[in-house]
């Protein structure tokens, strides 16, 4: 499909839920299916060693069951061309994801994360139910397909945006995402972050292409994209938990994808100038890229967790020595996610940049919005780089901060193989970006009949060549450095500021590394710091602990939830078991209804 074959569709003879099962595979579906199959395959290989029967006898079989159910559900969602079956697939994948997240049910944190995920997911599903039901009510059938001419359908887009936005983890709707990703087994986190979030993006892509979009939809998408990108990375910087940090980076990258898609939608309203196609290509390619490197990073984090038993970065350190493969692959993923050349993250971000900057050169109303967006994207990239410098530095460099980190061991070949596979994908897209342009142009055509030239822009070829050159140079420099380190360098201790007995705890911690940047964002992060400052010249005890809360969850969702619960408690006073009062309620209701009926009948 992605190489240019015509779309495939199939309609069953039997009825499922009253309508024939309709499957449709076009370039958009195929694009996301490729990602699904890649990450799912890598995850399956990874899970063989990561979650084997020998160490998890109770949960490994059910894990496999739900893993496959989730993949099937996502596959159905991607190919369904019928609202009802879309919802069936959606629910199947959402529920099996819940079971996967809460595989380790014994741990109360895991249970809480699972519940939060399930609740948030069902809010989204509810919005989608409303969306598909009103769509079916207005079109008269559950069948889905391009219907851009039917202008009355435009307001429905907001329902879809809410439903898919929750699943994708767009900034104010991301509350479920960090804890679910952090507490799920790592291969599940990879599938969740790499693919499940993209199913939300798929929904947005699909229905912003098939349905007419209300005016302003593109701006909202782009605006929320910018917010997610910057705040996602800001929150990531405040985390001390390795997987939670990665989860917040998913919020950031979803923001980058939405930026591309949002500006593409804006461009669509203006007959798609060239910059729009670039932004679209960048957004779409980032879907693949993020799927690849985020899964790679979660696998890496999983390997670390597997080896040391902790996700707390302040207990790790010095792992490069024990786990060179994991460390190298994780660093490669970090380079990719920070948007550094010569890897794939740079390619897609570069496409978005060039789209935005081209739009900025037109000097119209769009330019005024686009230039700040480009700046925010740059800020995001810089902060992501800072964040991953922190991760790699704290986890893999320095000296081990705890006994488990000292005894860490390299992961097996199964896990390494899965990571190598994803790393190869990252590198391939990074070095030969022009190869993928045609794929993107076909997806754009099926998205909303956007006519992208099938020949990649020349700059992309140049970029690819530069990347290859950079990679070769980098490799050469790396080999040279290793040789130099092995042969010419005298080893000695670091300068210790006159304190001659440093211990492993006297290193930069994750919190101190990101301290300054955290202060910049203190207005939204609202970190809590508990410290006991040293008071005398020869202090005995001093302590400092910082914690970044889930601001949106703790300061918005929970207070509102408590209010609703209090109201519900008051309402439950009406249910007290006294038959007479129940009959009284009934009577009042009947009287009010009949009065209403009579009055409305008369007027």
């Amino acid at each position, binding site marked *: 499909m992605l190489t240019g074959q015509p779309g495939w569709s199939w309609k069953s003879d039997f009825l499922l839920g009253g309508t024939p099962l309709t499957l449709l595979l076009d370039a958009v579906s195929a694009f996301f299916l490729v990602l699904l199959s890649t990450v799912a395959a890598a995850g399956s290989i990874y899970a063989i060693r990561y979650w084997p029967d020998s160490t998890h006898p109770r949960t490994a079989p059910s894990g496999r069951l739900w893993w496959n159910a989730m993949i099937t559900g996502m596959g159905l969602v991607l190919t369904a061309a019928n609202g009802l079956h879309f919802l069936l697939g959606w629910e199947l994948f959402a529920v099996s994801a819940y079971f996967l997240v809460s595989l380790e049910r014994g741990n109360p944190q895991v249970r809480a994360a699972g519940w939060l995920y399930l609740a948030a997911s069902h809010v989204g599903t509810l919005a989608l139910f409303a969306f598909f039901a009103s769509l079916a009510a207005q079109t008269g059938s559950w069948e889905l397909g391009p219907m851009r001419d039917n202008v009355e359908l435009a307001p429905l887009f907001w329902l879809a945006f809410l439903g898919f936005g929750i699943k994708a983890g767009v900034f104010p709707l991301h509350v479920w995402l960090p804890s679910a990703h952090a507490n799920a087994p790592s291969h599940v986190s990879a599938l969740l972050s790499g693919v499940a979030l993209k199913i939300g993006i798929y929904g947005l892509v699909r229905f912003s292409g098939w349905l007419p979009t209300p005016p302003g939809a593109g701006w909202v998408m782009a605006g929320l994209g910018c917010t997610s990108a910057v705040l996602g990375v800001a929150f990531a910087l405040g985390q001390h938990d390795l997987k939670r940090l990665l989860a917040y980076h998913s919020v950031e990258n979803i923001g980058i994808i939405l930026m591309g898609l949002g500006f593409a939608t804006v461009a669509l309203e203006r007959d798609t100038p060239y910059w729009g196609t670039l932004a679209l290509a960048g957004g779409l390619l980032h879907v693949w890229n993020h799927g690849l490197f985020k899964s790679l990073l979660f696998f890496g984090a999983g390997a670390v967790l597997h080896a040391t038993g902790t996700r707390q970065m302040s207990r790790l350190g010095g792992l490069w020595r024990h786990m060179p493969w994991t460390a190298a692959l994780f660093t490669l993923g970090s380079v990719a996610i920070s948007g550094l050349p010569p890897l794939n993250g740079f390619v897609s971000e570069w496409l978005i940049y060039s789209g935005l900057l081209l739009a900025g050169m037109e000097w119209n109303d769009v330019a005024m919005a686009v230039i700040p967006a480009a700046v925010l994207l740059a800020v995001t990239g810089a902060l992501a780089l800072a964040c991953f410098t922190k991760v790699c530095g704290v986890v893999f460099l320095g000296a081990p901060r705890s006994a488990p980190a000292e005894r860490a061991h390299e992961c097996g070949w199964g896990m390494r193989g899965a990571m190598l596979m994803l790393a190869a994908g990252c590198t391939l897209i990074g070095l030969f970006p022009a190869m993928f342009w045609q794929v993107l142009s076909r997806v754009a055509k099926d998205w909303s009949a956007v006519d992208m030239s099938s020949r990649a822009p020349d700059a992309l070829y140049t970029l690819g060549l530069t990347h290859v050159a950079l990679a070769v140079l980098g490799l050469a420099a790396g080999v040279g450095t290793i040789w130099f380190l092995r042969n010419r360098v005298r080893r000695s201790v670091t300068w210790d500021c006159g304190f001659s007995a440093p211990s492993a705890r006297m290193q930069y911690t994750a919190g101190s590394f990101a301290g300054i940047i955290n202060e910049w964002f203190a207005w939204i992060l609202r970190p809590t710091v508990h410290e006991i400052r040293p008071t005398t010249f020869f202090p005995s005890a001093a302590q400092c602990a910082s914690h970044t809360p889930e601001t949106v969850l703790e300061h918005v969702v929970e207070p509102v939830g408590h209010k609703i619960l209090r109201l519900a408690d008051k309402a439950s006073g009406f*249910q*007290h*078991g*006294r*038959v*007479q*009062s129940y*009959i*009284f309620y009934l*009577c009042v209701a009947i009287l009010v209804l*009949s009065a209403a009926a*009579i009055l409305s*009948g*008369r007027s």
Partner: protein
Amino acid sequence: MNEILNLLTGLAVGLNLLALGTSRLRLLIRAVAAQGVLLGLLPLLLEHGAMDWQLVFITIATVAGKGFIIPTLLHRAMRTANIARELEPFIGYISSLLLGAAATIAAVVIAQHLPLFPEHVGSLLVPGAIALILTGFILLIGRTKAISQVCGYLILENGIYLFGLLLIHATPMLVEFGILLDVTVGIFIIGIIVDRIQRAFDSLDTRKLTALHE
């Protein structure tokens, strides 16, 4: 014909006030029984002249059920439970009477605003039915003893029956019998439950049933 019909309906509505104003359960049950008999006779009057065997059968069954079988069951329940008076009503007897009067007036006012068939406009059938239903509700809400509440339920059912008379030609006999049978069986079961409540709580006060909720 219509005058006799209105007279009977009026009498039935008058019995409402008796039912609302008394504290003695025996009198309450008698009032409900009398109401049942009065209403049971109505189908004969509605049918203009032509005596249909079906109609006669319904009349006999209704009069027997509402006037004799159900009151007997209630009397027996009262005897086994060993109570004779409603002592602590939620709504006092005077207030109940006033409410009942208000409900009757409201019923007449409401009936004037309902879109009725022309042949029903002059009769008391519709206001009577509404008045009976409202009175039934007042008894159900205002009384605490299970037997008084059953009587309220019966008056409510009488009101529904009166409404049903409007449709007597459209309703098959089977449905009429179904309703009658339901009511009788319902009362039978309530008689048993009353006994159980009495044994469990040493009283027929339904307020004590709140002890059962979670």
